[in-house]
C-alpha cells in the first residue's frame, strides 16, 4: 500500500495561513491503515489547527470529513458542497488524493497535509518499510521475490556491491542489504545458479524515466469513450 506521513504542523499552518475556513479531508484507504490520514488523524489535525490558530490570535474555522477513497472521483461527489464552502482544502490523502481533488474541484485550493513516502508494508508495530518502486517491469521472479530496485540503495541488478557488511547496506546499519537477502533466500532454496547470469541493463522506460505513465485497457473501455 501507499505509506505516507504527516507534514509538521508548522508547515501545514503555513500552507493554510491565508485561509479562514479550512476543510481537512481524510482518506479511508491506505493512509488510514498507516495512521497518517484516516478519520482519527483528520480529527486530530482539525483540532490541532483550531487550537494552534486560536493561540496565534487568529482562530480559523476548521471542519473535517473523510472519504472512502480520495483517489477516485466518484467518492469525492459527496463532499462537493463542503469543499465549495471553504477557502482551502487540506488533504490528508496521498499525492494522488490531492490531485484527484484538484482535478475534480476546479475552483478549490487544495494543499497537502501529508508527505507520500513510498509503497510498502508494516514490518512491526509502528514500522513501515519500502518494498516496491513501481518500475513497471517486475523482476521479482529473478531475485527470489526480493526487489533490488526498491530495496538496494543503488538499485543494482548484479549486486551486491562492496558496501554490504554484516547483512546491512553501506548507507546505514538500519538498512538491510537487499542483495544479502536475495543471496540468502536463493541459497536456502538451492537456486543460487540464478545469480550467475548477468542481468542486462534495465529498460527504465516503463518506470518514471519514460515520462508520466498511463495504462489503457481497451477491454474495459465503454463504447462511447472509444469514439
Amino acid at each position, binding site marked *: 500500500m501507499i505509506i505516507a506521513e504527516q507534514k509538521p504542523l508548522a508547515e501545514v499552518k503555513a500552507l493554510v495561513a491565508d485561509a479562514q475556513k479550512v476543510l481537512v479531508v481524510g482518506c479511508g484507504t491506505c493512509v488510514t491503515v498507516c495512521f497518517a490520514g484516516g478519520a482519527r488523524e483528520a480529527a486530530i489535525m482539525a483540532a490541532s489547527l483550531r487550537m494552534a490558530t486560536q493561540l496565534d490570535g487568529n482562530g480559523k474555522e476548521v471542519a473535517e470529513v473523510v472519504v472512502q477513497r480520495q483517489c477516485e472521483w466518484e467518492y469525492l461527489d459527496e463532499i462537493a458542497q463542503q469543499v465549495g464552502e471553504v477557502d482551502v482544502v487540506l488533504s490528508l490523502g496521498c499525492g494522488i488524493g490531492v490531485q484527484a481533488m484538484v482535478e475534480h474541484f476546479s475552483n478549490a485550493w487544495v494543499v497537502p497535509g501529508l508527505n507520500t513516502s513510498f509503497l510498502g508494508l508494516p514490518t512491526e508495530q509502528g514500522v513501515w518499510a519500502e518494498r516496491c518502486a513501481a518500475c513497471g517491469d517486475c523482476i521479482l521472479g529473478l531475485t527470489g521475490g526480493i526487489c533490488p530496485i526498491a530495496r538496494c540503495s543503488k538499485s543494482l541488478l*548484479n549486486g*551486491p556491491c*562492496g*558496501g*554490504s557488511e554484516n547483512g546491512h547496506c553501506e548507507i546505514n546499519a538500519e538498512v538491510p542489504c537487499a542483495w544479502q537477502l536475495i543471496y540468502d533466500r536463493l541459497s536456502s532454496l538451492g537456486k*543460487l545458479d540464478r*545469480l550467475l547470469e*548477468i542481468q542486462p541493463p534495465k529498460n527504465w522506460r516503463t518506470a518514471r524515466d519514460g515520462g508520466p505513465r498511463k495504462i489503457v485497457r481497451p477491454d474495459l473501455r465503454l463504447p462511447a469513450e472509444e469514439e
Partner: protein
Amino acid sequence: MPPEPNGNGYLSGSNLEKVLKHGHFAVTGELGPPQNADGEVIRKKAKLLKGNCDAVNLTDNQTAIVRMSSIGAGAIVVQEGLEPIIQMTCRDRNRLAMQSDLLGAYALGMRNLLCLSGDHQTFGNHPTAKNVFDLDSIQMVQMVSLMRDTKVFQCGEAFKGQEPRFFVGAAESPFANPIEFRPLRLGKKVKAGASFIQTQLIYDIEAFKTFMTKVRELGLSEKVYILAGVGPLKSPTMARYMKDNVPGLWIPDQLIERMAAVGAPWAGKSKDELTKEDKKARSAAWQTEGIKICIELIQQIREIEGVAGVHIMAIEWEEAVKPIVEGAGLLPRPIV
C-alpha cells in the same frame, strides 16, 4: 588470459595491458584529483608517481565528494607522460553520459578504465543529490567491452569510425558480504568482459589466500589479471577507524599493534603534553612502519599464485609510493 582482438594483439595497447601481458608483476597507483580546478595539483602528484607505477587510477568523485573529473585530471596525467586508469562510477552518469564521456576520454589518449558502482551519495558532500545507477558496474563493463569489440553502442546501434579501445577493469572486495559469493561475482565481471581486477585493500593475507584459492578453482586467475590492493597505514588510529568503518576491510590486530608499538615512546602522554616536534617524530615513526608493513604485504602477496600485480592506494600520500615500490624490489618498472 583475455581474448585478443585482431591487429597488434592487444585489446587497448595500454602500458598496463602490455606489462601484464608480458608477465611482469604490475604496479598501479592512485591519484586523487583535487577539490578545485588547479591542474598543477595533478602535475605535482603525477611527478611523484611517474616511473614508480605502470599506470595510476584517477578517482571519480571518490566517496561522493565533488572533485576534478577523472577524465579531466586524466588528460593532464597523459600530458605528464604517466598512464591513467580512468575510474567511472554508476552513481553520477546514465548510459548516455558514460558512453559519450568515454568516447571523449579515448580521444584524449586514455586507454584504461575501471568500472565501479560508486559510493552512495549520502556519504559525500552533496547528500541531497539524486543518484543515477542506470547501469551497475557489471553492465558498464559489458557495455564498454562491446563498444570496443563489436563497435556498437549499448542500445545495439552500430557506429562507424574509431571505437574506444579500453583495457577494461573492475573492482573486487574479497571480504565484503556475502563472502561466499564474492569469487562467483568476480566470475560475472570476467564474463562481462573485465580484463583486470583491482581489489579492496588487503591486510589479512591468510584470508586473501583463501579467496585466491577459490578464484583459482573457478579458473578465473587464468582469465583475468588480479591486482591486489595495498596501502600504507598512517597511524594506529587510522587503522582502527578503517577496520571498524570500511565494509570489507579486514586489518589483523597484530598489524595495528605493530603500528601502536612504534608510537610507544610517545604513548601515555596527553595531546597537550606532546610538543609539535614530538608529534612530528611520532608521525614519522608511524609512517615508516606503515610503509614497512606495506612492503611486507606486497612480498607476501607476490607469492600467491594467480596474483598479477599490486594496486597501491596511498591517496594524499603519494610520496609513499616510491619507497614502497622500491622497498618491494619492483623498481625499475618494465619498459614494454
